[in-house]
């Protein structure tokens, strides 16, 4: 094999193929080996699609079993009581908690991640940027349960000071009022999620910023722009859609994160308007915490809430990918 590649590389095949050889090559796709191989590889692709379809079908099936017996409204009930007869459960609290924790995570993570990406591409000493990018890659690989353990045992005790300060000066808003419980609340969860999704947003943004045409930046510099003006006028407009899709990928992670939320949050099934007081829950956390004691019906109900999470992440990720795909076509970077 190796010989083949080497010899063809060294001397391009000069002899013209005869007519019969050309015909044979054209017929290539109908050889049995080819057909089997094409079938195998196409089959794998189709299998992947089938798995996606199966996820949707099976989740919907089990979810339908549960929802048909639900006495409350599945979308608006503020209760999760699957053992009662008749069972009453709804996802309102979970939807609220998931959205709130993800919003906090995004508000913190996106600016910081973009700043780090800019740091790596435009500010850091060149010798440092390689190793730092490498470390950030490694941090993206740290398992979420380790983040969860760290969050619960290290981050939570450190939040007391910040919570006291927020309560003292911003407590009047209601959002930041604190009754002094352990800081296992939505804000802590949001901060932990922000730390967890930081590496992925940074990595994708960095790739985009790196593709900014050198000419644009040099043109701006030649006109006397400062480094910040170069970034604002040449880099950010070019990378905007990339940053948006990177953020949405991060959002997808934050929405579906299970273990970190389950370890840090002390959940109660109420909508907690203050971000500092413990309580509330997210889709994934609720499934992990309630699964142990759930009956078969209770599991179906949890599957129903998982179906909602599946649909939401599907939409978010689909949108992110669509933005990336569109950008590839129209930007001049790859031309």
């Amino acid at each position: 094999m190796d010989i083949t590649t080497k010899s063809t590389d060294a001397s391009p095949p000069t002899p013209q193929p005869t007519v019969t050889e050309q015909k044979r090559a054209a017929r290539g796709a109908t050889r049995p080996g080819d057909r089997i191989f094409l079938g195998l590889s196409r089959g794998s692709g189709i299998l992947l699609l089938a798995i996606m379809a199966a996820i949707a079908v099976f989740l919907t099936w089990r979810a339908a079993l549960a929802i048909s017996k639900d006495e409350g409204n599945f979308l608006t009930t503020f209760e999760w009581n699957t053992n009662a007869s008749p069972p009453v459960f709804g996802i309102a609290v979970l939807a609220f908690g998931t959205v709130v924790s993800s919003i906090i995570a995004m508000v913190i993570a996106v600016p910081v991640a973009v700043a780090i990406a800019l740091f790596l591409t435009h500010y850091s000493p060149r010798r440092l940027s390689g190793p730092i990018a490498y470390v950030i890659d490694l941090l993206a690989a740290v398992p979420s349960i380790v983040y969860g353990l760290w969050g619960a045992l290290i981050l939570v005790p450190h939040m007391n000071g910040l919570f006291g300060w927020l309560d003292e000066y911003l407590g009047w808003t209601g959002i930041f009022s604190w009754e002094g419980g352990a800081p296992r609340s939505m804000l802590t969860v949001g901060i932990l999620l922000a730390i967890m999704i930081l590496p992925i947003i940074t990595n994708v943004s960095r790739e985009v910023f790196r593709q900014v045409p050198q000419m644009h930046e040099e043109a701006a510099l030649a006109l006397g722009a400062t480094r910040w003006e170069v970034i604002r006028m040449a880099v950010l407009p070019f990378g905007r859609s990339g940053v948006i899709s990177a953020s949405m990928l991060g959002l997808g992670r934050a929405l579906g994160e299970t273990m970190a939320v389950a370890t840090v949050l002390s959940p109660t099934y109420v909508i907690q308007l203050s971000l500092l007081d413990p309580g509330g829950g997210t889709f994934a956390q609720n499934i992990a915490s309630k699964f142990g004691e759930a009956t078969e019906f209770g599991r179906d109900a949890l599957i129903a809430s998982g179906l909602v999470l599946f649909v939401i992440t599907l939409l978010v990720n689909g949108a992110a990918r669509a933005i990336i795909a569109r950008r590839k076509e129209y930007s001049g970077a790859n031309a």
Partner: protein
Amino acid sequence: MSTLTEARTSTLRGASLPKWAPWAIAGGSAALAVGIGIVGGLDSKVQWGLIAAILYVLATFVIATSVEGKRQAKDRLATSFVWVAFLLAVIPLASLVYETVKRGVKVLDGYFLTHSMGLVADSEPGGGIYHAIIGSLEQVGLATLIAAPIGVLTAIYLVEYGRGALARAVTFFVDVMTGIPSIVAGLFILSIMLIFEMQPFGFAGSCALAILMMPVVVRSTEEMLKLVPNELREASLALGVPKWRTILKVVLPTSLGGITTGIMLAVARIAGETAPVLLLVWGTSFINNNPFEGPQQALPLYIYQQYANSAGSGAAYDRAWAASLTLIAFVMILNLAARGVARWKAPKTGR
């Protein structure tokens, strides 16, 4: 400051701060922050750091505005914001690594790695992670056996054959599949298990992990196959070699290093997944070598259960940290090895 501005005589360049100015401002604001911290009685060092950061940004902006003008001041503001953001982000990440290592080494020894939790209550010291390591290795290994061939074949289809609607659909759904939360993959297998009334066992976890692994393998393999120069394919085809043999004997060997790297990174990713294992494999304190029957343990799940089921026992927390350190070490070694393979077997792109 006025002497600095007067020292510049050239009219072509505006006045600018000397090179040591940012360092001086940083030192000054750090000292001021420590002062405020001591006077104000703030005991959290994090707060000291935050105060120092805010002081630094403000001082830089004010001084630069007065000496260099507004545009330069904005530039310096952006620079300091970027640096501060970077340093702020490094703190938690460094703390994570530091704390895990510091607390993990306490009970991590040969005994810990070679004993299970059988007959050890969660609140007592002793016991180990042998059963979790066995479970993790078997579940992840089986998941890799399922996901790697399917993933590589799908990537081959997309790069070598894929045209038209089917290929576009596969590409799109592979992307979307990357974002499936691990708990949803777990629920999917769970719903099948509920229908067939199956009890939890290791292989069910492997199936869920395989679903999470497939799109990652497809993505990375696709990238690698695209790097194989077309001349190699054309040369092989021109010699009359069938397409499938061209792929097997020319394309795949050329990109083997990259594909291996991708698979190893995917393994590292699924080795840390907890949620599907929690739903499908349940966890046990005993050694179970058979992934096809009975509950098993896995490292991430072990960490969670030591944390959650022990009601704050120090011994359990120590074990959780030690298991975390083991898991991180495993993932990091896989990552580093994968990068090593990538560098060693980098695809030969033309000569």
